[in-house]
């Protein structure tokens, strides 16, 4: 494996009892997720679909019992997986995904959890041998006004996104600072947070954006919004990360397993 500071720690099949499992640790936010996939299984009659497999996603929180946040996370993962898994290959069955939040800096922050959850789920689906149309990868991008203060960042984690600049030379201030997979502290200084998920072919699978007011740790918005052309540039960069680096990470992780 490449030893880049941005490559996650991945351990494949840590759980011998499930069909496929994966443990994923985000190198920068230190969020650790463990997912297991079982399937195709027998489906409960009320969930049975006549010509598709039913996908069930269960997100289990690290602290406490599952609530609204976990339901939201699982519905986001579910809708992403629905466009990846070839459900018509196993009609009238159940593909069950269980994601356990093992360790997180902030167990209550949805954007910090979503990217590791998605990436880990996709890896464990591959291990479990569930037929998929393509693979996807997710990256969490935080947009800041200034370079992150008092937080050490990994090499290559921070980059600048120039604004237009075709008609006139822009000053440095008009640039946006983007941090890849930020931790809670950086997210607290961010203006907005965007989780983008792309397939290998560059199709958009999921975009989950939210606005943060500075210093709230991603908990509230201050009504500033963001510029759509800035966002498109950001998404373009996210697409590059997912399609090039993400797919490379998947390929390397699975290199010595005959899955691909």
């Amino acid at each position, binding site marked *: 494996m490449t030893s880049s500071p941005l490559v996650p720690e991945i351990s494949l099949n840590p759980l011998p009892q499930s069909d496929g499992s994966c443990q994923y640790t985000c190198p920068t936010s230190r969020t650790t997720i463990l997912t297991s996939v079982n399937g195709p299984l027998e489906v409960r009659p009320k969930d049975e679909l006549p010509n598709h497999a039913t996908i069930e996603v*269960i997100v289990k929180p690290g602290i406490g019992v599952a609530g609204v946040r976990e339901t939201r996370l699982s519905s986001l993962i579910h809708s992403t997986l629905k466009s990846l898994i070839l459900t018509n290959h196993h009609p009238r069955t159940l593909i069950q995904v269980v994601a356990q939040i093992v360790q997180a800096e902030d167990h209550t922050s949805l954007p910090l959890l979503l990217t590791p959850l998605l990436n880990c789920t996709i890896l464990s689906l591959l291990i479990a041998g569930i037929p998929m149309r393509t693979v996807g990868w997710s990256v969490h991008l935080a947009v800041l006004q200034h370079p992150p203060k008092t937080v050490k960042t990994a090499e290559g984690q921070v980059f600048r996104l120039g604004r237009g600049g075709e008609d006139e030379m822009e000053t440095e201030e008009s640039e946006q600072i983007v941090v890849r997979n930020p931790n809670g502290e950086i997210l607290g200084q961010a203006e907005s947070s965007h989780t983008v998920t792309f397939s290998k072919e560059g199709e958009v699978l999921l975009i989950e954006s939210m606005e943060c007011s500075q210093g709230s740790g991603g908990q509230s918005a201050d009504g500033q919004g963001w510029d759509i052309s800035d966002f498109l540039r950001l998404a373009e960069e996210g697409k590059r990360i997912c399609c090039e680096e993400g797919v490379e990470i998947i390929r390397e992780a699975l290199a010595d397993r005959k899955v691909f």
Partner: protein
Amino acid sequence: MRLKPLPHPSTNHHRHHHRTPSSSRITNPSRPSPNPRSRETVQLVHYSATMPKEPEISLAEKTFVLEALKQNLRVDGRGIHSFREIELSFGDDYGFVDVRLGKTRVLARISAEIVKPRSDRPFEGTFTISTEMGPMASPSFEVGRPTDLDHTLSRLLEKSIRRSTALDLESLCIVTGQRVWSLRADLHFLSHDGNLIDTACIATITALAHFRLPVITVSGEDITIHPVTERVPVPLSLLHWPICVTFSFLGEDEDGEVVCVLDATAQEEALREGDMTVTVNKNGEVCQISKSGGVAVEAETLMKCARMAAEKVKGIDKLIATALRDDEVARNKGNLDWLKEGKSENER
């Protein structure tokens, strides 16, 4: 519109037993039925509404395991009374432990928050243990539908740890009647290969011993919680470490006596005819014994088991203490760096 299948002429005579699924589902499968064949039908309908069962042990497998036990041998090569190797690893933050016993794996995490105490116990903090099993441990566990094992486990942990007053709840009091610490242990069952009870107990005790409460200062009405970076957090006041040891009774030895096996695997658990859990601390004090039904065991065997449990617990206690000390040393090594970066030196 669904067509109702015509009853097969041969099944006609016991049609009333399984005609409508709703009526058969509420039928208790253990209820004696006049016709053995119809009872089987009812059971099938009953199970199709739940999640997949554990694969059943084949007759050949069963005979093999039991015959081997007769010669004091176990399938995985262990001795009859030996545990699998207990592996403990700690996470980045306090109160998080990952326990592995062979293929069985349980995570425990302790968390604390400040709440108002119960009005009838104004001097005491609260401590809850949450044991929810999901399909991650085994596909036969379903979310929101606790199995018998679920109930047994939470009951046993409750008796072993909470009722044996392992944790001094009065030490969790901040302001009498106003503010107390509320501790919570979340157990996550990742992989089930037998002996979840002992593993869960070891995980809870280790996590409690590993946990540190942040220091607080009270001035009048205000309570200040000092972050870890400011003041060194304090360990909980654990009075003793109760540890569960589960004996599984299965098969017979050469003299025709029931064999009791320690730390059973899932395979052995599926074959066992009875089990008993003894909770002891390192001083050899029995906190709890539970033997709920199953095969009848001689009183003398029970005494032997209790004595053996006390012996085993001494070893486990030592192992936990060593692991905790090693982790403490590793944490203190790069103390300041660790605090700055928010990550520990010890890698799993």
